[in-house]
């Protein structure tokens, strides 16, 4: 989840969400985007986009950038079988 190609794709997907949630009622666009990413993205995807934000977050639209900043901290398990 770290190649330029897949990060570009993650940025695009997050921005797509931003465009959907921005005009919705209730005003909490950032919260809605954060929630959607938390619920649907596998931890490694969240880690990759958070890392991208840490490096400046090129390409992320305004509310999306903020939403990525608020993502639940994702952990990848240690290697091995134990859950």
């Amino acid at each position: 989840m770290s190649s330029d190609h897949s990060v570009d794709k993650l940025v695009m997907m997050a921005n797509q969400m931003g465009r959907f949630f921005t005009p919705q009622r209730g005003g909490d666009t950032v919260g809605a985007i954060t929630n959607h990413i938390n619920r649907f993205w596998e931890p490694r995807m969240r880690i990759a986009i958070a890392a991208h934000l840490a490096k400046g977050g090129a390409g992320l639209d305004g509310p999306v950038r903020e939403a990525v900043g608020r993502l639940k901290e994702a952990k990848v398990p240690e290697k091995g079988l134990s859950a």
Partner: protein
Amino acid sequence: MSLVHEIDYGTPVSKSAETVKLTIDGNQVTVPAGTSIMRAAMDAGIQVPKLCATDSVDAFGSCRLCLVEIAGRAGTPASCTTPVAPGMVVSTQTERLKQVRKGVMELYISDHPLDCLTCAANGDCELQDMAGAVGLRDVRYGYAGENHLKLEKDESNPYFTFDASKCIVCSRCVRACEEVQGTFALTIQGRGFDSKVSAGMLSDDFLSSECVSCGACVQACPTATLSEKSLIEIGQPEHSVVTTCAYCGVGCSFKAEMRGEELVRMVPYKDGKANRGHSCVKGRFAWGYANHKERVLNPMIRESIDQPWREVSWDEAIGRVASEFKRLQEKHGRLAIGGITSSRCTNEETYLVQKLVRGGFGNNNVDTCARVCHSPTGYGLSTAFGTSAGTQDFDSVEHSDVILIIGANPTDAHPVFASRMKKRLRAGAKLIVVDPRRTDIVRMPHIEAQYHLPLRPGTNAAILNALAHTIVTEGLVNEAFVREYCDRDAFEHWAAFVSEPQNSPETVGVMAGVSPEDIRGAARLYATGGNGAIYYGLGVTEHSQGTTTVMAIANLAMVTGNLGKQGVGVNPLRGQNNVQGACDMGSFPHELTGYRHISDDATRTMFEKLWGRPLDHEPGLRIPNMFDAAIDGVFKGLYVQGEDILQSDPNTVHVVKALQAMECVVVQDLFLNETANYAHVFLPGSTFLEKDGTFTNAERRINRVRKVMTPKNGMGDWEITLAIAKAMGFEMPYSHPSEIMDEIAALTPTFAGVSYDLLDKVGSVQWPCNEKAPLGTPVMHIGGFVRGKGNFMITEYVPTDERTGSRFPLLLTTGRILSQYNVGAQTRRTDNVVWHGEDVLEIHPQDAELRGVRDGDWVKVDSRAGGTALRAQITDRVAPGVVYTTFHHPDTQANVITTDFSDWATNCPEYKVTAVQVTPSNGPSEWQREYNAQAEHSRRIAAKIAAE
């Protein structure tokens, strides 16, 4: 075991609520008004002799065998065409009637070949039965007179024969083709002695006619005239088992008619609640793939994909899967492997694969092919209404006044449901079609859409907003419904949004290429024309705005009050047989069964307790994410059950790269499919005829699949998953799929009441099926939405990033056709190829002329993702600027061209819009040639090579 016999009542059931009392042969009978005397007699157990009547079509009254006498009335009226009347006293058997019937039969038999002993229908011939029933003992006319005995057979249809010498011109076939199928392919030509059944014009045979090979005429024929070729070859069946078609989401019930373990024919089952006795060419006839020579029956493994396959024992193959998966997890972490469930497999099998991944692999990297078709339906409808499924049963269409079809082509993709829809349209319901192509249903015999909005691919959401704009600004809102059942704030916010000028038909029309007046007209018709029902398909979901469009559809239904009763609703037409079921069964990486999020502690704990395993609370990878992760080197092993991701997923070049990057790809399928070219383990799968289980169709109906023969590969697919789980140390002790369903029911509130016992008793049920609805729920959201108040979401139109430009000026959209199914793995291995031997590119005459392309020429189609070549078909079905193709043939690889843009909410790929250029070409492209060479190389099997 014996044959499942269905009673033929002679004429269709009357739906009248009024009843009539009468006396037949001394028996008091009470039946609905409008019932024929023949049917009333049958209700009382009295079979009036008949030939031209059958209960699938309206009575015609031509054979004169069903005559009866009615006290106080002169003459001998036909019981099939005479309705009952109060107090009527009917005799079905008198001296006079006996004489007339004998006379009629004598005439029929004198012009009928007397080869009963060697006739395919011997034992199942109504003419033979009637000769017996009327006591015919001799034929006074002799057989030397003018007759039809030398007429030629029409063998052109690959599945059935028309032997004109045996025809009694009862016209049951003609009426079945008209009334049941709605194709109008057959006519009776000529008069009197010269009259005969004809398929289309005199010059036509069945194959060259309009016939779509649905089999309704064969089913209706009382003689051997129209007979299945398999029946002619094998002989009459001796037992039958009711099961469910494994092709499309209609979920038709069939009787698998058997002789021992050999399938003689599949006959549509009248009690099947989805199909009501009808079928299409796929389910009825295209089952020969089960015995195709290319079917793989032994497990195979190889160390790398450039090696030939090596046949091994089941133990060795399963052992290899387990050891590889364990190794990959040891080396690359618990999240490095995953699985894909199939919408072609049963609910039980799907459930097991997700259980294996979650419980056995210890992660949630499980997804299903529904990802690439209807995932937006789940998310969109659950946001609006609270459930991830269609709202109606199929019967509902009989009560619709306006049918709005958007992004679906039911006559090709859901043919049996389409026949029911067409019947309703012929009876007067109005039709609106929103589709870039002029699909068949727009104009066909006795049907003409009031509106066809041929929008530019990718503008669905805009058009739906414009329909809503018209409804809201012209005061057509169903205020009472909205007030009572919907969230007021959400409605107000939404109404203000759709009323904005950018959503007006005048603005949207220009951009979408549709006349604003037509948009307004269609909106008015849908809002005011009575019961309005929306049916939609992948033309809605497979877009970057798929979910938005599903929500826009839900908004439209809510604002007009078209929910919560018969005849209305939002109805996704599911592609494959078990798309609904695969979604219900917890195949999505973020959801357990019944659409409950994996992060929900209470739900997860329930599963953990029953499975005895801790479960990960984080969502797993979806199919497109798996590919990306594979290319990034963090996803290494994949178990794919019954799914050809390489051919069916978009951007083939990208998928190939992803598969090549994995170290252990396990494919479980009937054939070495395209994905298997990149696999390391091949596990032969079983067909739907070889296992027990259930499928859930597009109307949430859970239908039984019943085993009629031993699996040729040795194991049902569910048993294979159990073996893998066991080898990985995760025991799942089931001895029969019914126990799997019991577990599903125990864990899933919407399935709580489902069991094989119940299904055996009542045939089928539609979920939710639980304490509140012990026999299931045909229509949802009656008296309120599952989520509480209906939720209007804002559905702003956001154009896809896939844009046309000077390099790629045309828009490609994709679809399927009647005779083929999905990637074609099954149907291409049947005689259905006579109708569709290759995929072609539909192109408008203007675009063709501009490029110097003639009909039938090879053309190259290039997009930003890749290029392929196929033949062009010039047609004005598509608008200028739009081209269209199907994706049934691996040679064409339509998905080389499609991109990996996807729906914002669910990652459902955008198959339906790709910017392309079309140029003349000499034949297959370089890529196709290389691909085919690789495929051939990859499919080698070591033992077979040695033998050659």
